């Protein structure tokens, strides 16, 4: 299989000193990569980003160049850049790793964005749990203010994001920075229209900014030289459910099989893979094995690359119980502002748990299908949509197991102390 023979590991974002040496210093960063080219932090970089085809790495895979252009058009020189390092997705670790090891790549990207959109402030938004990332960024911000930077410094401050799943949602991030309330707000207006301080705000994921920092130096063609399928470039993925879990940089288009090989997971030992985190969905291993991890291709097949989570489910795990735990988590992480999300997700979670425990009522499956069918688009943010999307993929991939649980009360992969089917 040719794909498995190509090295999976890439070294672009994660090029440089080994992980053990911790956060890269400003000196090392400049020595290795040079300063940002003169006039890089200006509108011109937007065209380069558009040419590169860089897609956002926060989960939505939205074209980065287009996003910057939209903010630049409205900013009037008074925009804000919000560097989104909240990483509330529990299965994802790539943002905290990038922030911890390569803070200057992230800050370069922020400077580029600020120059491109006409921002007068940069806010670095880091999740409270990511202490190494926070320290690394604090230090990096300090290093920059101590030297005579080029391009000239833009006021940069660090804001610690609460440890909630929705704290990284763009309107929630803006809400927290403005009013210390990390709950999403009703949109429109979206942050690119009215954000921090009522001014246009660019909310961009840290990894996206890291890529931008390299593209500004090496060009769109360099960026596009990597990639194995339709979407070009490299990306960070978080690999779990394998013998050697961790964050890896890969070429987009690398297959799930190649990642399983990298992390140490035999096909026979896994039944499915969760792609994109709790906001993504399950894929059965037979369908997923040769799947290319390519945002455009995945979207076409109604899946998602999302935030780059690739999480394998062991062959002897119960897909129903696993889903029930995820639904319970998602219900608890609701911002508790909108009735349909609060009541709907909680009801779905409780009934899914009942099904998982083998204690389902006759109509329970029909119930969760109905509730899930009603939930999309009925919250102020997309949290219920994500949860319902995950449930729908679970019902598809683990359908047989759901039916076995619901109608027979049995599990084919019992946990300790349970009866087998």
């Amino acid at each position, binding site marked *: 299989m040719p794909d498995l023979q190509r090295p999976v590991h890439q070294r672009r974002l994660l090029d440089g000193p080994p992980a053990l040496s911790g956060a890269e210093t400003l000196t090392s960063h400049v020595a290795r990569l040079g300063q940002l080219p003169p006039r890089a932090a200006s509108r011109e970089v937007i065209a380069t980003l558009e040419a590169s085809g860089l897609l956002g790495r926060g989960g939505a895979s939205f074209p980065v160049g287009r996003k910057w252009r939209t903010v630049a058009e409205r900013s009037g020189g008074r925009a804000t850049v919000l560097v989104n390092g909240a990483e509330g997705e529990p299965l994802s670790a790539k943002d905290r790793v990038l922030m911890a090891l390569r803070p200057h790549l992230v800050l370069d990207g922020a400077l580029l964005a600020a120059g491109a959109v006409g921002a007068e402030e940069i806010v670095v938004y880091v999740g409270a749990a990511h202490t190494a990332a926070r320290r690394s960024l604090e230090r990096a911000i300090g290093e920059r203010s101590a030297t005579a930077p080029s391009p000239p410094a833009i006021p940069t401050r660090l804001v610690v994001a609460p440890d909630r799943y929705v704290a990284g949602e763009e309107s929630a991030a803006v809400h927290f920075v403005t009013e210390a309330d990390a709950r999403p707000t009703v949109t429109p207006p979206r942050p690119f229209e009215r954000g921090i301080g009522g001014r246009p705000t660019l909310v961009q994921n840290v990894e996206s900014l890291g890529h931008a920092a390299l593209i500004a130096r090496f060009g769109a063609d360099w960026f596009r030289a990597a990639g194995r399928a339709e979407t070009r470039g490299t990306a960070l993925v978080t690999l779990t459910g394998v013998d050697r879990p961790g964050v890896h940089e890969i070429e987009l288009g690398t297959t799930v099989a190649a990642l399983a090989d990298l992390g140490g997971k035999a096909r026979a030992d896994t039944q499915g893979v969760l792609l994109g985190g709790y906001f993504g969905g399950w894929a059965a291993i037979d369908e997923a094995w040769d799947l290319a991890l390519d945002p455009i291709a995945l979207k076409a097949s109604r899946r998602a690359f999302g935030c780059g989570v690739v999480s394998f489910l062991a062959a002897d795990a119960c897909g129903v119980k696993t889903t029930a735990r995820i639904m*319970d988590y998602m*219900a*608890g992480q*609701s911002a*508790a*502002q*909108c*009735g349909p*999300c*609060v*009541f709907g*997700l*909680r*009801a779905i*979670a*409780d009934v899914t748990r009942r099904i998982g425990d083998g204690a389902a009522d006759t*109509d329970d499956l029909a*119930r969760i299908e109905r509730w899930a069918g009603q939930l999309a688009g009925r919250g102020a943010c997309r949290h219920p949509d994500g949860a319902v999307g995950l449930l729908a993929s679970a019902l598809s991939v683990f359908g047989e197991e759901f039916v076995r649980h619901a109608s027979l009360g049995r599990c084919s992969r019992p946990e300790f102390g349970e009866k087998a089917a």
Partner: protein
Amino acid sequence: MSDQILWFATRGAGTVSLLLFTAVVCLGILAVVRWQSPSWPRFLSVELHRSLALLSVVFLGVHIVTAIADPFTSLGVVAAVVPFASSYRPLWVGLGVISVDLLAAILVSSLLRPRIGQAAWRAFHWLSYGAWPLAVLHGIGSGSDASAPWMMTIAASCLAAVALSLTWRVAAGRSNRGELSRVAAGAGAGREPRRA
């Protein structure tokens, strides 16, 4: 003779206004506790509340105008809007004047609700819990027939109606919004759906 008519008009319009105002308060509470029955849809509480409020204002207007016009009370226009400025039973009339001032604020804020927004409108609306008891007190204390059985009956009925409604309001517990955080956290069972 015409003085008698004005006096009766004032008393009559004032009493009708108070009765309507009491109904308005009760309907407002019915709306909040989301009362409904097969013959009483929820929207009726809101729409009737608004209609009767406007009607009560009409009767209130008659009450005030005839009171000013009545030579017996020697109320000037000033005394009708400035509390305790009347020479006739200044305390009791004054309470009524305060009540009217509060009602004016509630009325204007309701008419301008789309402009001032929900939060401001709600703040003004809370004044109704001040305006209503003042109106009752005014009704009991201002008239020379205050101790007449019919007046006492009316006052007692109004008090009872609102007291019952308030008890219901408190007993109905937290609104949906109050429960959201609790339910999301999984504390206590999620609300049982209306249909299984």
